[in-house]
Every structure is written in structure tokens, then in C-alpha cells.
């Protein structure tokens, strides 16, 4: 007969309660890991969306996300002519507060050239921008759906399509409009003094600027070689997709990432200690029974089996509860919670290891206990 199972069944209510408690704790740990992963994934979302190989930005900047970058719009034609470049598109990024149904809506507005790289990835609902003015593809997280009308700057846009999970590194929902509309929006929203300068054409930057040019390369072209070519223009810098992703995770969300990372490690440590304590006390409560088992002649493996099996049962049921809980509520978080199977399995492995270590402590105490203690009252 399996003593671990029989003991659990005898005190089922209490055991399940402990499992639920542990499950909640592990659920929180999983949520934190998911929030951490979500932060990194969201930081990369916008940079990955156009599916390109090279970013051309202003010289001496690491734009367009980590640092401000402004380059002339005609750069795109020059880039498109470089050997190895399959397609290039101009792109602008700006954060705008729009008015929608009498509340402020913070949007990350992306301006792109509809026939060139830089547009939204999959359109989930509706269609891509078809006209050159006042159409918008909005991410679902903004709450906007096709046929909605939103005022941006001085113009009213009509939502024609929806994307999913397209947000800026700050978590603001992305919307796509045409490059011309975006440039006009930038002008409309600029401070009045700058606007006057821009209108006269005397400002440091002309009105026909963009934040970056993105380029898609031929399959056998080397991004580094093309980047080298771009850098010969002294006013331009080139960042490969790989380098861009590194900039985003290393510098843009670095503090937030480290903050959450540290907190997650703390939480993990606390959980490990709590699991260990639960299992250890669970064994300590049974010492008299264990002494009796030894007295009547049960071998060590019976006693070890009982402790270890209970620890593993507690750990795995608790973990299953936590994982199920988070999997079922993760979509209700305001920002993305990404549960990657790798991370979930890693946490599962950690829980099992902690359970084994804690039961080793219990086993040590159990093997030390003098069978004669069973005789006491």
C-alpha cells in the first residue's frame, strides 16, 4: 500500500488547501515571469513588425526607438538603389494623444508608405490602408475597431483594419497611417514656433523628413555589407535588425527589465523557501509516525518514499494549479503576459528540485529520529 497516498487521502482537505496556497504563489511567480517576457516581447514587437533587415537612421544615433532620428525623406530612393536591397520604405513614429469617445487615448502612430516595407504585419479584421489619406489600421488593444472614427491632430481618421498585439515598448497601442498623413500630423502637433520655421523652410529640419528608412534585403545579401555602404553617407547610420533588437532590449527597456527580473528572482527565492518550509513541517508533524514505522521494522526506503512522494505530489499539484490559473487569466492583464513553454517548464523543474531538496531535509530528520521516541506518550 502506498503510505504517501493514504496519508494524503486521510487529510485531503488540508492537503488540497496547501496545494491551492502553493498554486497561488507559483501562479504569481509565473505571472511575473510572463510579465518579464511580455516586456521584452513588446519592446521588440514594433521593430519586428515590418519584417525587414536594415534600419537607416540619422548619423550618430541609435534610432529610431532608443534615440531621436531625423533624415530626409529622399533617403529612401538612395537606399533602394544600393546593391543587395530588395525594397526600402520611409517610416515615422510618434506618440499622440487622441480623443476617442470622450476619453484620451494614447496611441503610437506609425506612418509608412503603403506600397513599401514598414506597414502592419497581419491584418486580423478589415483591410490594409487603400487610400492615401485619413485611413488607419489600429491595434485591437486600443479598443478601436473598423469603422470607428478618431481625431488625430486636425484630421479625422477612419479605422479600416485591426492588428493584434502591436504595441510600443511603453505599451501604447500602435496605429498605422500613411506617411503623408503622419508627416502632416507631426507638423500639426509641433509647437507653434517650430511650425512657423518649418513653414518658412528655415528650420533646422525640413518638413519632408522621416524617422528612419527600413530596407528589406535580397536573401543572399549581407546586412553588414549593406550597412557599411550606407555609412559612407556621412549623415546616415545603419543598424541591422539584429543590432536594433539588441538596442531595444539592452537599453530601451533595460531598467524595467532588470527591475522586474530582480523582483522575479526574489519572488522565486521566497517561494522556494516557503515550499521548503511547508514540506519540512509536513515531515516534522509525522515524526512520531515515522518513529513507529521504524520501530515496527519498516525499512528506510518506505519512509523516504513516503516523504518524497508527498513532497512531489504537493509541488506538482501546486504547480499545475498555478500554471492553469495564470494561463486562464493572462489575457486580462493590461499588458502582455507571455508564457513560453520553456519558462513554464523551467519553473516546473525548479519546483521539483526545491521539493526534492526540502524532502531531503525532512528525510534527514526522519532517518535520525530514534525509534524509541514512538514509545513516549
Amino acid at each position: 500500500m502506498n503510505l504517501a497516498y493514504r496519508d494524503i487521502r486521510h487529510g485531503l482537505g488540508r492537503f488540497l488547501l496547501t496545494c491551492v496556497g502553493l498554486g497561488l504563489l507559483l501562479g504569481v511567480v509565473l505571472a511575473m515571469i510572463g510579465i518579464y517576457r511580455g516586456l521584452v516581447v513588446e519592446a521588440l514587437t514594433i521593430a519586428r513588425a515590418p519584417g525587414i533587415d536594415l534600419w537607416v537612421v540619422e548619423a550618430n544615433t541609435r534610432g529610431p526607438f532608443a534615440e531621436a532620428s531625423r533624415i530626409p525623406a529622399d533617403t529612401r530612393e538612395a537606399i533602394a538603389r544600393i546593391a543587395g536591397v530588395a525594397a526600402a520604405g520611409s517610416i515615422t513614429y510618434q506618440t499622440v494623444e487622441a480623443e476617442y469617445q470622450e476619453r484620451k487615448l494614447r496611441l503610437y502612430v506609425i506612418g509608412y508608405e503603403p506600397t513599401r516595407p514598414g506597414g502592419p504585419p497581419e491584418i486580423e479584421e478589415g483591410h490594409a490602408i487603400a487610400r492615401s489619406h485619413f485611413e488607419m489600421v489600429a491595434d485591437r488593444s486600443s479598443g478601436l475597431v473598423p469603422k470607428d472614427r478618431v481625431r488625430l491632430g486636425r484630421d479625422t481618421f477612419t479605422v479600416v483594419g485591426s492588428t493584434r498585439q502591436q504595441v510600443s515598448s511603453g505599451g501604447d497601442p500602435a496605429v498605422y497611417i500613411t506617411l503623408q498623413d503622419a508627416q502632416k500630423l507631426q507638423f500639426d502637433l509641433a509647437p507653434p514656433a517650430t511650425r512657423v520655421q518649418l513653414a518658412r523652410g528655415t528650420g533646422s529640419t525640413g518638413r519632408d523628413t522621416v524617422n528612419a528608412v527600413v530596407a528589406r534585403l535580397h536573401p543572399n545579401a549581407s546586412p553588414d555589407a549593406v550597412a557599411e555602404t550606407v555609412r559612407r553617407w556621412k549623415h546616415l547610420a545603419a543598424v541591422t535588425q539584429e543590432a536594433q533588437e539588441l538596442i531595444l532590449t539592452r537599453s530601451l527597456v533595460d531598467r524595467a527589465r532588470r527591475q522586474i527580473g530582480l523582483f522575479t528572482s526574489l519572488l522565486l527565492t521566497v517561494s522556494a523557501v516557503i515550499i521548503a518550509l511547508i514540506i519540512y513541517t509536513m515531515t516534522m508533524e509525522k515524526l512520531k509516525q515515522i518513529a513507529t514505522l521504524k520501530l515496527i521494522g519498516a525499512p528506510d526506503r518506505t519512509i523516504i518514499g513516503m516523504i518524497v512522494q508527498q513532497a512531489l505530489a504537493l509541488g506538482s499539484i501546486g504547480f499545475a494549479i498555478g500554471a492553469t490559473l495564470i494561463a486562464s487569466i493572462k489575457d486580462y492583464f493590461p499588458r502582455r503576459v507571455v508564457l513560453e513553454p520553456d519558462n513554464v517548464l523551467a519553473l516546473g523543474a525548479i519546483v521539483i528540485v526545491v521539493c526534492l531538496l526540502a524532502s531531503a531535509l525532512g528525510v534527514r530528520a526522519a532517518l535520525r529520529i530514534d525509534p524509541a521516541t514512538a514509545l513516549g506518550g
Partner: protein
Amino acid sequence: MSDKKANQPPLVRLRDLSKHFGEAETRVDALRNVSLDVRAGEVIALLGPSGSGKTTLLNIIGCILDPSSGSMELDGEVVLTDGRWVRPNLRRLRLDKIGFIFQFHNLMPFLDATDNVALVLQLAGTDPREARRRALELLDYLEVGNRRSSMPAQLSGGEAQRVAIARALANQPRIILADEPTAALDSKRAGIVMDLLRKVAVERDAAIIAVTHDEKIFDRFDRIFNLRDGRLESMSSNGMKSIMVGPGDVGERI
């Protein structure tokens, strides 16, 4: 004691067994040169005031306490010489040869009466169905068959104690050690339990050594020994109740 029994080697043979706890000022001599032979079928009582070494002696016979010196044979096998264990795997020896009955029943709270008994059978290698069958048989034998599916918490003190005795008897040990087996029972139940133990000793050819303070059951023992400051004195060989009630004999106990 019959002649037939006298010719068999003793089941328990103790020679000059001593045990002290601590050293120098804190030294307590719990047992001093205890020698004793117990034969199959004998039921032996150990008396003595509190702290006189009764539990210590039972623990050493049960191989759960190391003595300071002396030697011991159990069922013809030398297990201890000059204060050192010479037989390996004492736990297995306990499982096969020794049954323990405690003052408190010490049943596993999470197993029902039958499984508490079946457990020790299974530990000794009996297959689960056979273990249950024999457990039920034993419970019937101890007249608690009707409580076979009860959990220990649902049993009365006397019922629990009888289940515990069934467990102690399960592997047919030849040596049964009982530390105040009837202390938790009323005198009627105590008498029933002692009668059962006598029956076991006779029918199963076992030796029973029981610590007791209970005068009402003295007549159930073949021999009665008194421990005083760690020394073993023979009191009587049955029917010596008159000696026992004499002044100063057992009056010291608390």
C-alpha cells in the same frame, strides 16, 4: 512451567546487561547487570517504581537502544556481545521476530484497522491480498473484526489497543514486548487484553514481556520481576499476589 518448555532454549536470554545514561555527576545507572531467561509460552511482568529502568530494559530487548555492556540472544541467535550489536539489520529482526505493543496504540492514523495490520505484513514481503486476508483473520481473533474498516480515531481505547496487538502479532513474532499495554484501559478491558496475550503466548509459542503497574492483572503472569534502581529481582512464580500487596513493595509508584 512444564518440563517440555524448560528444555527448549530461551527465546530471550540476557546476561549482565547494563545501561547508564550520561557521565560523572549526571550519570544515571538505568540497568545494572540484568540477567534473565524467558522461554516460549511464558508471560512475564516487569514491575518497579517510575524511573527504575523498565522501559530501558524493553527498549534494549527490542533492539532500539544501545546497552552499555552485556550480551543478549533472541530466539537462539546472538544479537549482542559485550555491549555491541553483532547482528546486522536489526530493523529486519524487529519486523520478523519482535512485536511491540505500546501504552498508546500508535496506529497509523491514516490507515484503517485492517490496513494497519496488513502494513506490517506487507513490509515483511507478504503480497497485499494475502496481507489483508491475514489481517482480517487476526482482527477476528482479537475480537475486533467488526471494526475492520474503522480509522484509529473512530476506535475506542480498548478496540485500538486490540488492533495494535493484532499488528504486533501479524508477522508471528516469537517475542512480544509490551510497555504498559493496559494502562489506557479500564480494568475489565485490561483483563480481556491480558487474557488475549496469554492465549497468544500459549497458542503461538511466544514469549511476552510486559511492563505493568496494574495489580488487578498480576494473576495473568507466569513470573513477576521487580526492577529497583536498575537491579532485577524475581518476585514470584505466579500466585504471589499476597507478596505484592505487602507494604512497601509497589507502593512507590506514581
